[in-house]
């Protein structure tokens, strides 16, 4: 469904991605793990076209999207729940969800809203509350819900567990699993390697802009290198 072929990305003179290859199949949860500065977010950003890849190609459903504008990529069927959630704090939950649906046809709105509120009953309780007044976990739910309102076929998530309590992280990952079971392909970028690998069908490990390992979630969880680098220290 989505393919990175030897993608290089530069920030000025700094090469952040040094030729990565990643493949995501329909219906999978694929996770990308790595330390700070490994290039996880850059991978997502390259996919979204800010910045665009300097070498290599990104293809989505057979179409080359390497040099497409961000808004075209979104309307192609890729939605993102960005790092740090970035909900609109002065807009209500309802308006936030509406913003997510801004690229879709209005006739889908009611059904989509019902679906998202079904996934996140908490959001329904807070529907007229301003985004800024929600707790961190609720904001993350809102960010995911907002992304789903765009009717994507591929959902990108950048660090959905960032700054959340362990219990809430588990809830969020439960929901990601549920979304996936309903047929959504998910590309999950995470620092929380343990949870991410447990959830994911397949995973890639990114170190200094290069993919050093890949395999199924269980394989990576069992691998001694992954354990040593990301899972030691009481996770």
């Amino acid at each position, binding site marked *: 469904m989505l393919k990175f072929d030897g993608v290089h990305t530069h920030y000025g003179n700094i090469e952040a991605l040094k030729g990565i290859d990643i493949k995501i199949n329909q219906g999978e949860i694929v996770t990308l793990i790595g330390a700070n500065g490994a290039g996880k977010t850059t991978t997502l950003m390259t996919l979204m076209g800010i910045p665009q890849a300097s070498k290599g190609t990104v293809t989505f459903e057979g179409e080359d999207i390497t040099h497409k504008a961000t808004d075209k990529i979104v309307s192609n069927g890729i939605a993102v729940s*960005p790092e740090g959630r970035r909900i609109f704090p002065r807009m209500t939950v*309802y308006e936030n969800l509406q913003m997510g649906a*801004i690229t879709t046809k209005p006739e889908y709105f009611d059904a989509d809203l019902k679906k998202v509120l079904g996934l996140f009953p908490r959001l329904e309780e807070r529907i007229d509350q301003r985004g800024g007044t929600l707790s961190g976990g609720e904001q993350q739910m809102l960010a995911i819900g907002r992304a789903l309102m765009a009717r994507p076929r591929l959902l990108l998530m950048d660090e959905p567990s960032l700054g959340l309590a362990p219990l809430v992280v588990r809830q969020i990952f439960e929901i990601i699993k549920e979304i996936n079971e309903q047929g959504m392909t998910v590309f999950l970028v995470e620092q929380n390697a343990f949870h991410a690998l447990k959830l994911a069908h397949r995973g890639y490990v990114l170190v200094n802009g290069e993919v050093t390992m890949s395999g199924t979630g269980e394989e990576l969880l069992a691998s001694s290198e992954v354990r040593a680098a990301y899972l030691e220290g009481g996770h």
Partner: protein
Amino acid sequence: MSVNNQKNDMLALLKDAGIAGLIAAALALPLAGFKTFDVNGTLTAEPRFHWVLVAAIVTFVGRFTISIGQRTFFSSFSKAAGSSAGSIGAFIKKNQTTLAILLLTAAIIFPFSPMANRHSLDLAVYVLIYVMLGWGLNIVVGLAGLLDLGYVAFYAVGAYSYALLATNFDLSFWICLPMAGIFAASFGVILGFPVLRLRGDYLAIVTLGFGEIIRVVLLNWYSLTGGPDGISSIPKPTFFGMAVFSRNAQDGLPPFHELMNIEYSTLNKFIFYYFLILILALVTNFFTLRIRKLPVGRAWEALREDEIACRSLGINPTNTKLTAFAIGAMFAGFAGSFFATRQGFISPESFTFIESAIILAIVVLGGMGSQVGVVIAAIVLVLGPELIRELQEFRMLAFGGAMVLIMVWRPRGLLAFREPTLKLDGQDKKGDGT
């Protein structure tokens, strides 16, 4: 021990107030210490140092009282003031529709009331021009969050395009009005392109520069704009092309009073201006209220809140910003052509930076994005200085002081709440009410 502390405190406060008094004296010496006279063409100054003394003493006593007060009852007082302000905001919010209808009725009845005379109608028109400009700028600053310090440039473009079209090509006001809007909007797009990548302070500086460029071009392009002499004898608008507002028929059009079968009065013309700008302003308002509910309007608001999130939702920030600039500029263009036709004379003098500053102050003082706030702020900022004319040279001092006080009292503007544009049916009772 505590007595000693209090004594030290007192000394510190006195010292603080003393410094404030000295600064006030130093400032007052050049500002109020001399009164200037024009004696036979030469400027002479007469010292009046007692004024300096008064300023110093007032500042000293004031500063001392405030700092004592801050320790005792002031904190509770300001809290009370804040909550009363909050309840005013809540009251306005609750009765918004009623209030809007009342304001509108008052605005419609006003020209037929005994209060209406040439002077009051002129003032009302003046206020309404600023209300319209405030609403127009509110689209750019309040909704899209693009700080524009050169808004007056579009106002100037509108005014000059009407003046030039009408004087050179003999086109009527009703044809020129939309054209002025289109010209101003295209200037908005021209400004929009280079500043698309800029944000915040950088954007403000570039817009400021743009405003000055327009003014300087108008000033120096003598062959077209008449430079500092401006353009005079700009034609007055007709009554929708059916009648003129003079005693006798002109250009084959009958006079208004004959068409309407009423007594001739010079007021007719001013009442017509009043309603013309009222309608233009209301069109701006309804347009803004409507567009906030459409995708492009929501995209503006989203852009103000978080540009990166907007991109991730598939909004094209380029188009969004350009439409905000263009539409905001268009309304300034309408207001500009009305201004030109009402004044009958325009020159670059009318489009200086201070105009941009006043319009921006109206938007900020009203509470960014609040439509009713703009009306109140325009009345305060435009009528206020007119009402305190008796203060003569201290007028602007009092005006500035009042603005500072208002912003201390309501730091986020007079009506700083954002009304959600949409609600889920049957969910009206819920919500956090902020």
